[in-house]
């Protein structure tokens, strides 16, 4: 009787084990799917970030160009002010 029960249990456990292994396969596939999703998202964000960095660099260059232009204009204005001051002193 006990032997029969043990045999039945073993059989049942084997059945459950088979189902668990199928589930394990599903879980592994799902993990691979998660990896793929994450990898795709990272790849996309990498691409976008590269474009952002390029644009940010371009804009930063524009800002420094404008600063340099202003500096030159400042020099011109300084000369103008000095010249005007000199003219007034000569009058």
């Amino acid at each position, binding site marked *: 009787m006990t032997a029969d029960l043990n045999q039945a249990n073993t059989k049942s456990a084997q059945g459950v084990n088979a189902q*668990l292994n199928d589930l394990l396969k599903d879980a592994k596939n799902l993990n691979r799917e998660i990896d793929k999703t994450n990898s795709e998202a990272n790849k996309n964000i990498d691409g976008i970030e590269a474009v952002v960095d390029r644009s940010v660099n371009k804009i930063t260059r524009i800002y420094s160009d*404008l600063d340099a232009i202003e500096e030159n204009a400042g020099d011109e*204005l300084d000369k103008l002010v000095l010249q005007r001051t000199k003219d007034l002193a000569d009058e």
Partner: protein
Amino acid sequence: MEKGLITSTPESTKEEPVETETEAEAKAKESEEKKPAKASGVNRILGRMEIAYNQFWVNRHEKKAVQLKNKIDGSDLKIRALEQSKQEIALAIGDLKAQNIPGSETLKLKIKAIDQEITGFSNTRDAVQSKLEERENKAKLYTNKRDRVADKLIGHYDEKLEPMEEELENLQTCKDQVDLVMAVTEAKHGEQLEKLNNIKKRKTQLENALRTTGMSEKQVQKFEAVKALTDLLVQGREKVRLEWDDLMQRKARINEKIADVDAKANPYRDKREKFARVKAGRPVSMEVATRQRVSEFKGTEEATSHTRTESSEEKPSGVYETSPMEAKVAESIEKDKERRTASDYISGWNTYLQKKYGGDLLATETVNSKDFLSSTRLSSDYKLDFKDFKNILTRYYKLKKMPADKLNADIDKFFADTIKVQK
């Protein structure tokens, strides 16, 4: 840009007493010392521009010019009075002649004397006017020189601001792309977490089945497949969590970079307008009967003002945000877990729009299925629930800068009328 900081506004200098150029220089130096070391570039350059104009006029030239103008006016008055006397004497001569009364010659001599006097005043007036015109011309010359500097700056700014705006627009698109990637990933993660939940449920059932075979709790937990499953479930969740955290951080970093350059853009946009505005300070017109030679400065004097053009592109102020939906519909969408393929949703949405708006519908208001799938990198048979579809579609509309009024007005109705009914 570390040059002298000279700030002088027309308002502040107007009320100051007239000062000599040496005093002006000293004041400028003093002002430079008093200013904080790190004043903004725009104030420095604008200050110099203003002083290039103000120092001339406000210091003493304007006062002198007014004095000269007064002299001219005085001469004009005297000349007019003498001309009037001349006319009266001429009338008197006429009367004497008509009545054959002698003595008109004396009056003629008087007229001659008046003429000489008029000539004298006219000569003085001309000399003074020449002086005034010379001063005015000098002032205009300096104003024009200042304007040329401002114009050059404005030109450079116009040249640089256009590509800057293009790049900023490009960055906005990048921001929208990030949002779309996040929305798609969120939908996929949501589906994967649900699958993990289902596996967990199934695992619990199988663990119970093992217990019924007489296995102890310890034995069940040590069962190889159970252990492996437990690990995989933990790993899966952890991967989703870590990835999401990472994506959020990267999104924040990207947004921070964009916000940083975007914030710096406004002062540059404003500067261009300030340079244009600084040209508004013009020499005071003395309203003297000007001579022809003065006209040579008119061309440059009448420099056109560069008004600041308002950007026609309005930032979407919540247009793309999801419209406030009725609690019932929202709840219903939230609860709806039925998944449909991306293609089904798109064709359903386009059909819905066609049906509702018919001929009034613009081609740009429907979704191009091919472009949608390529932008979202979803496969046409990828299944998602309505909430995720709505979220992704909203981001897609924003990225493609599609008119969102119909999306906002109809997306929930589309769910209620089409998706819910089909179930």
